[in-house]
């Protein structure tokens, strides 16, 4: 596939918008994307799987007044695109007038001009053999660390190159391309009858940005080893600390709470709470899609509004929801540039780089200050209810006594209400780093109910 097809994709998108106009649509918007993926897994030193392919797709949304219809296709031929447009036109007939439906005002369109650094040629330049070798080295480092690392689900290298274009009938036209790659290892450790696994990974927009394979493998093995011979706990209340890998999930819950759809439907505990204190004063949460080189960065959102930095919670005070044009109109607010969608359909809401701002303390200091409690390193299940804030998830981690690791813990749950959890954030670590578009440093929460034997 030719990776310099941005202008070509833009022309196709414009062409779809023109077809929709010819078909009588009042407004329309079109997304066209193409991508190629590569992945390789090495298990116990042998190549297990290599996958390589590319694909393309187009989607259109048409408006007839305030009725909408959407369609998509993987057939980008002239006939394919025409069939897609006529299908969307047919669907607009059966939907209902929605007084809030419509494209953004042209005055709101924009795009980030400075280099977002989303595409690195070194990903495309890396040959398959080198990628396989990185996966092999990462797995080897895990297997060599300790004799108890006796098995593995493999080391994997994955890369993705993508380009997408967006055009609408009010004159927005933009495109960009992006690259990313990742390296991960899943070692399995055994001691007597007990068996545990864990994983570690590195991900970056450039191949040179990845952590060395040896580091990824070693860290994965260390994480699996420290889980061996875990115990459950008796049911109790105790302070809890989330390590960064699991603290990110708290941000995903915050995203649900700030999601414009949940706000106008009153399906979030934070509906109607703008300007109120909703979290402890340590808590500042930001969504920034303009940070160069990061995974949540884009030049414009999926309605053609320029990407931006939104402060969502400032020292505990709720400053902003996450809104697209539709939800902003419903709420009488302005879009936060957070529109997101796949190829087609009404725009939903997404986030850019969503993160909890760093605190001042080293993670070890957080453990020392907690004294005795649970350091959570894994969460399981989906037990969060944005409507009520109720929180209950399966957990594994390390029991801490006097600030030191006492023993590994598994098969417990931690429960509370997110409202109280965020109000009881006792301290935040200084260890923020991005391994994806959601990131958090170590977070110390007050007491939660730990349920076990």
């Amino acid at each position, binding site marked *: 596939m030719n990776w310099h097809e941005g202008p070509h994709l833009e022309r196709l998108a414009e062409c779809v918008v023109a077809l929709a106009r010819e078909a009588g649509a009042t407004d329309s918007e079109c997304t066209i994307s193409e991508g190629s993926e590569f992945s390789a897994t090495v*298990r116990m030193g042998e190549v*297990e*799987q*290599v*996958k*390589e*392919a590319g*694909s*393309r797709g187009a989607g259109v949304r048409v408006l007839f007044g305030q009725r*909408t*219809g*959407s*369609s*998509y*296709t*993987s057939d980008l031929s002239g006939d394919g695109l025409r069939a*897609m447009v006529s*299908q*969307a036109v*047919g*669907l*607009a*007939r*059966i*939907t*209902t007038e*929605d007084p809030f*439906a419509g494209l953004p005002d042209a005055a709101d369109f924009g795009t980030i001009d400075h280099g977002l650094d989303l595409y690195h040629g070194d990903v495309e330049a890396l040959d*398959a053999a080198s990628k396989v070798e990185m996966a092999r080295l990462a797995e080897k480092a895990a297997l060599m660390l300790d004799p108890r690392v006796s*098995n593995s689900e493999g080391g994997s290298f994955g890369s993705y190159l993508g380009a997408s274009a967006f055009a609408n009938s009010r004159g927005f036209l933009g495109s960009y391309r992006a690259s990313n790659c990742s390296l991960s290892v899943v070692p*399995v450790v055994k001691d007597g009858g*007990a*068996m545990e*696994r864990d994983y570690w990974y590195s991900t970056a927009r450039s191949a040179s940005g990845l952590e060395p394979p040896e580091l990824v493998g070693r860290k994965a093995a260390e994480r699996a080893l420290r889980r061996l011979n875990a115990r459950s706990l008796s*049911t109790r209340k105790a302070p809890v600390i989330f390590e960064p890998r699991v603290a990110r999930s708290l941000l995903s819950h915050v995203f649900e709470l700030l999601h414009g759809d949940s706000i106008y*439907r009153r*399906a979030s*505990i934070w509906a109607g709470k703008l300007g109120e204190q909703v979290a402890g004063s340590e808590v500042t949460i930001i969504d920034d899609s303009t940070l160069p080189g990061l995974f949540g960065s884009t030049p414009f959102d999926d309605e053609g509004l320029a990407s931006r930095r939104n402060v969502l919670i400032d020292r505990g005070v709720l400053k902003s929801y996450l809104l697209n044009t539709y939800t902003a109109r419903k709420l009488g607010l302005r879009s936060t540039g957070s529109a997101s969608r796949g190829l*087609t*359909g*009404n725009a939903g809401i997404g986030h850019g780089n969503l993160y909890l701002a760093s605190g001042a303390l080293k993670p070890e200091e957080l453990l020392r200050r907690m004294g005795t409690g649970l350091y959570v390193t894994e969460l*399981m*299940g*989906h*037990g969060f*209810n944005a*409507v*009520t*804030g109720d929180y*209950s*998830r*399966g957990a*594994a981690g390390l029991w801490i006594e006097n600030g030191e690791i006492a023993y590994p813990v598994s*098969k*417990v*749950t*931690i*429960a509370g209400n997110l409202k109280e959890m965020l109000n009881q954030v006792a301290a935040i670590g200084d260890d923020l780093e991005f391994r994806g578009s959601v990131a958090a440093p170590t977070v110390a929460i007050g007491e939660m*109910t730990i349920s076990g*034997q």
Partner: protein
Amino acid sequence: MRYSDSFFASKFGIAERDLEGWLSEALSRGGDYADLYFEYLATTSISIDESIVKSATQGVSMGVGVRVLAGERTGYAYSDDLSPERIRHAARVAACIAEGPSKTIKEGFLGGERRELYPVLSPPADLPLEERVSLVRRADEAARAYDPRVFMVQAVYADTMKHVLVATSDGRINFDRQPMARLNVLVLAREGENPPQRGYSGGGGRVGFEFFLNEKTPEYFARESARQAIVQLNAVDAPAGELTVVLAPGWPGVLLHEAVGHGLEADFNRKGTSAYSNRVGERVASSLVTVVDDGTMHSRRGSLNMDDEGNLTHRNVLIENGILRGYLQDRLSGAIMGATPTGNGRRESYQHVPMPRMTNTFMLAGESDPEEIVRSVKNGLYCATFGGGQVDITSGNFVFDATESYLIEDGKLTRPVRGATLIGNGPEAMQRVTMVGNDLALDEGIGICGKDGQSVPVGVGIPTVRLDGITVGGTAR
């Protein structure tokens, strides 16, 4: 039906000699086996929100995946363009996994046994769109009519029609037409200044449109969703600690999916990474427990005439009276383990490599009267509805989210409790099954199973079951 009359032959003009040519290309550098998986998928989705039909979407995607197996190695490539040049290119890319002289493929294809587990009378795609819109409108009205405390209703109807074709280098050719339809209703209810509560219901399967008119109507799902939300308005905090739990029949079978099913998928067991590895013939559950995975059930969400490697699906007994009988196989793991295919090789789409997956997984009925099971519990939790679940197949630890449950006090269901996660260990929890009801029920047809980033539709089922000692993750002591 002959191949020449099948979807890909008639719509795309793909002849058997084309398939042979691409398979030869796939084995041009050696390898033991190659296959082609063609897929054409047409989808429709219509949603209502605030009584407004806000969205209607249709689309088509198609492509072909080429797989080459060489020992334990898999090479995979795909194309979303069905032109001969692009398919040949994909075959050449997949071929690179092998290193050796080219292999010749078997000439001439043999079609396998064909079945018709989901003969759809009215394919939704053949009906006017307005008829499908009427389903979400009816759901919206019924949920609002159920109780004035219902203030928000969203309903989504979606149907898909998938045509697939599998051709293999060992001379097999099989094709299938796989319909799927589903209706979901989400409801919020509120009383006074208290926080709202939500209810969720839905169902469907490999069914025609008449299913929603005659068997499970929009009103049925709407009322169930509204009922759950209203019940939750009076819920108290869930208990914390180890309790006796009674599972209601039906969807709570998701417990088996997590606690047993994933751990029995052959890829994990071949590699020795599952808590159930090397345990065939051993006791892994109470003698009351017999677990079956059955891909051959009529019209069900997890059913398939053939799996995504072209093998017939089967009814496979996984655990029989507590003894582990076998694993869920795909071609690769079956060949390495010397096992016969069980018809469990599945994939999300042509862009994905097949692997062992569940179909419809359930526990056979026992002999206990369900009411007797509840009466036998002095102090426990009755779980009526679940959200989803998750498992770590290596340690065997699993969770599932109980979204509607009730305290059992002195053998009676008393107060509803708020949602809570339950956690246990698969082999341990299955040993703690002490009563099994005579009321096996399957779920309504809403299951989606995720593994290695691939989602496939599945079914689950269970009779009323008593589990002595599972950790309930509430906040009340």
